């Protein structure tokens, strides 16, 4: 039905040029380029994402501030993972690894729910280098008595 199929396109930018005759009837969209029999067994970064999967796109430019992650302080409680609205906390084998900046919108929930003292995640200006941010990390807060 059409010269090339949306399914055949690998490059996200190529999609934008498609004419009416190249569209999949009914505007169906596909998650993957090939069958994935048991998707829960495949970690996100190993899936054969179609260019029509939002995973391949990014919303990082929505942010004015970004969460920076400090591994040294983290206790891997996974609060940040469970409450992240944007699947942007990368966690493997019960360990927090880092933030997926392509998908993080900078809401700051991960920082709010982080229970360590000082926090293992803090918001910093978007333009600041993460290593610089780590150098600026605050010290432990004394609890008010």
């Amino acid at each position: 039905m059409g010269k090339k199929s949306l399914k055949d396109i690998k490059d996200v930018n190529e999609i934008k040029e498609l004419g009416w005759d190249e569209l999949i009837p009914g505007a169906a969209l596909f998650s993957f380029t090939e069958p994935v029999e048991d998707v829960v067994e495949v970690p996100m970064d190993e899936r054969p994402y179609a260019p029509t999967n939002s995973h391949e796109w990014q919303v990082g430019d929505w942010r004015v501030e970004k969460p920076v992650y400090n591994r040294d302080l983290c206790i891997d409680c996974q609060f940040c993972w469970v409450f992240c609205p944007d699947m942007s906390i990368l966690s493997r084998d019960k360990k927090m690894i880092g933030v997926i900046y392509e998908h993080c919108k900078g809401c700051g929930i991960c920082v709010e729910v982080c229970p360590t003292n000082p926090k293992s995640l803090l918001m910093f200006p978007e333009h600041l280098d993460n290593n610089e941010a780590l150098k600026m990390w605050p010290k432990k807060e004394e609890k008010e008595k």
Partner: protein
Amino acid sequence: MAKKYELNELEVWDGNMAAAQALRQADVDVLAAYPITPSTPIVQNYSKFLADGYVDGDFIMVESEHSAMSGCVAASAAGVRAATATSSQGFALMVEVLYQASGMRLPIVLTVVNRALAAPLNVNGDHSDMYLGRDSGWIQLCSYNPQEAYDLTLMAFKIGEDLNVRLPVMVHQDGFICSHTAQNVYPLQDEEAAKFIGEFKPVNTMLDVANPVTHGVQTEEDWHFEHKARQHNDLMNSFSTIKKVFDEFKDLTGREYDFVYKYKMDDADVAIFALGTTVESARIAADQMREQGIKAGVISLRVFRPFPFNEVAEALKDVKAVATLDRSAPGGTFGALYNEVSAALLAHGKNPVMLNYIYGLGGRDTTIDMLKEVYKELDECAKAGEAKYPLQQFLGLRGPKLAFY
């Protein structure tokens, strides 16, 4: 496994039974429906088939027509054969979802028993509901009697499900005059019908867990136009599949269908262009006019959408005066048939006298004598070479003559 339903070579069915039998033979996987006069017996008959073991699929009696069509959309997107039936207000309630069905390219079959739209409330046949669906992107097939309602319902599945089409199909029949009038029907046996329609071919099924698919997306100004264009293109091109299915059906049954229905049009000077059961009355009127020496013919559409623009013009190319009969309140302009037939003729350089009659609203009887009057008026116009009557007239209306232009 459903039991085989033993059918006689000749059955006496009304249009509703004919449609219900075709739905049964199509082995519909999900039939979601809501009762409404005059299409109710379709779902009643179907549920009796189910109760007697003749149906394998699911029959869901939903709480509204909106849900009936929504259920068909979801089932079809899930990758199964889905169908329903409705009329009038129920059709109107479905309208939102009719556009979803065609836009998502789901080959649902909807048997429509044509009925007037309120207000004032009316349960009888006219074409208000059929006309309401004409921009919805569905294929619309028209039947005039129970045999045709049966035949076209079987063919609707084969047409809509063809991979080059993948569009929903409505099969229209007139309320009561067709739906409740028992007539002779020559059915196919179950296995013949099943073989003719073929197995349902799922496309992008939601039930395939290995290939997740997203149905019913949002497209804004950067995409919507292309998608609607694609849909229109495929609807326009569905003629070739419709023709192919008509031909295959003729090979199987000997019963012949074409985009345009013609009766004694070869030498006709004057023609009535009507839809639905009126075609059968007009045939009798035409025969009687011919006895009086007036070369009268009848023309109709088998395929209302897509509109067979060229075939209509071709069929009317030598006619001197045409009356288009629109059985729907035109709402401030000419009837749809008048506008579309006029456009087809004009584009082909033909300029017969064109009259528009609004008739039969809310089931008002249209007699042979009335149709003969139309032919007489057409004959006068044909002989004069110009319109001798107002371009739009109301036919069979009480009170002072209502006419415009």
